[in-house]
């Protein structure tokens, strides 16, 4: 076991422990904070794998964006410092089962998948290459997912405007 493996296990432990804590804590703000640490742990694993671009995007999108929005909605809606109600035992069992099924599915996939050595030259993760890959329509290009995601975002934006727009006939 060398230093690199130790670091991997530390990051994995951080991710899993914080993930479990975030669903088991009864204080909603703490749940959000544990979620952040879990996501940061995942970003750390990406850094460990030398996927720096993915890691940074993980931090920007999840930690800096989504969880901050979650925290905002907690601030604006929840009662400060009050404990969440205890869950029924049936629910607990059901969620543990759901988690186990998801885990089993993933593990089966991982073990059945034939990982093959990629002998091709790795693409250098510089901005120009990332940009070309993002807009490429050839094999392995990301143009279609990119466009699909942008349609999703556009729909979300239009939805926000529709919700936020003031209806004149009702207020008058």
């Amino acid at each position, binding site marked *: 076991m060398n*230093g690199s493996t130790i670091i991997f296990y530390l990051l994995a432990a951080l991710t899993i422990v914080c993930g479990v804590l975030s669903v088991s804590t009864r*204080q909603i*703000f*703490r749940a959000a*904070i544990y979620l*952040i640490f879990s996501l*940061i742990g995942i970003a750390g694993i990406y850094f460990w794998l030398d996927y*720096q*671009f993915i*890691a*940074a*995007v993980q*931090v*920007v999108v999840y*930690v*800096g*964006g989504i*969880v*901050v929005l979650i*925290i*905002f909605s907690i*601030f604006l809606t929840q009662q*400060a*410092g009050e404990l969440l109600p205890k869950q029924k035992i049936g629910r607990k069992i059901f969620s543990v089962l759901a988690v186990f099924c998801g885990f089993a599915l993933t593990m089966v996939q991982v073990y059945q998948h034939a990982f093959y050595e990629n002998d091709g030259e790795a693409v*250098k*993760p*510089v*901005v*120009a290459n990332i940009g070309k890959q993002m807009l490429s329509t050839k094999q392995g290009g990301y143009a279609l997912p990119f466009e699909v995601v942008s349609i999703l975002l556009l729909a979300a934006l239009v939805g926000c405007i529709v919700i936020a727009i003031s209806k004149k006939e009702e207020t008058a």
Partner: protein
Amino acid sequence: MWSFSHIADLLHEWLSKTFNPTFTLIIEMVLAGVAVIGLFAALGLVLVIMERKVSAWIQIRLGPNRVGPKGMFQSLADTLKLLVKEGMTPDGADKFLFNLAPFIAMIVAMLLMAPIAFANNFQFWDMNIGVLYISAISSISVISILMAGWASNNKYSLMGAMRSGAQIVSYELSAGLSVLSVVVLTGSLSLNDIIHSQENGWWIFKGHLPIWISFITFIIAVTAETNRAPFDLAEAESELTAGFHTEYSGMKFALFFLAEYVNVFIVCAIGATLFLGGWMPFHIGHLQAFNHVMDYIPSSVWFFGKTFFLIFVIMWFRWTFPRLRIDQLLNLEWKYLLPISMINLLLVTLMAIMGWHF
């Protein structure tokens, strides 16, 4: 030549001769950590006395002038005072998060130091996504503020945290867009590449008007991101006592205080790297003699000189402008800075495609 990179090389050679590779790596990591902490302490001392002197001279006052020659040891005395003060935790606070928040603020500031090039060939980690890394990590810093505000169990703290969150989330956009304009011109996210692209002139000289616009946008946005006046609504003394750190005292308060100044240093270092050429000396066209004289000044002096110039500019803003209201703050971002920097980014892209820059 005793440059930083030379000293680092010598140290590395000596360590690898004496120890095996694993130990060398561990010792070097520890040394880097100690160096960063030492830099933080020094920055805290220097920037606090600088801020107090600058504010005093701008407001036609003398400033601290009792401790040491011309009051230069004032911040040392303040540090000692903060060290011996009792660190209180309020009764209704969420103790764990309350005590964690200042450390998060510090850790984020430390992580941000990684890709900064302090001198020629002297950088902790030259990653190829340096600029993206910085904008990613700096978005974590809002978490520490939200955490502190919530965990304090105090309405002023919560209000300060909310304001600061709204502010940082919105100003990150225009800061990112103005940084992108330099990335578009350079074609790389690596800070090292960005510095080397400015060998024949800093971007602020090469990039015509659009770069000036993005430089001004950048300065405004980072002033807002570091929660400094005129954008200090998060800690507005007159309305919220001290905002998110109202309940903090002693060393925990000192960590927040230090993190603020270190963040100012970091954003100014990034501004200096992107727009003012980092450690690149100042060169004028083909004046060989002048350029040689400029080359004799060590690269670290250039870097710290530019950074401290930008820090002075930000302090100058703080002591000149009155605080904005929250609606004015959001208007400035969403109605002015963001549209302008988007159009500006288009202009810069056009410029980069046509090759109009020098």
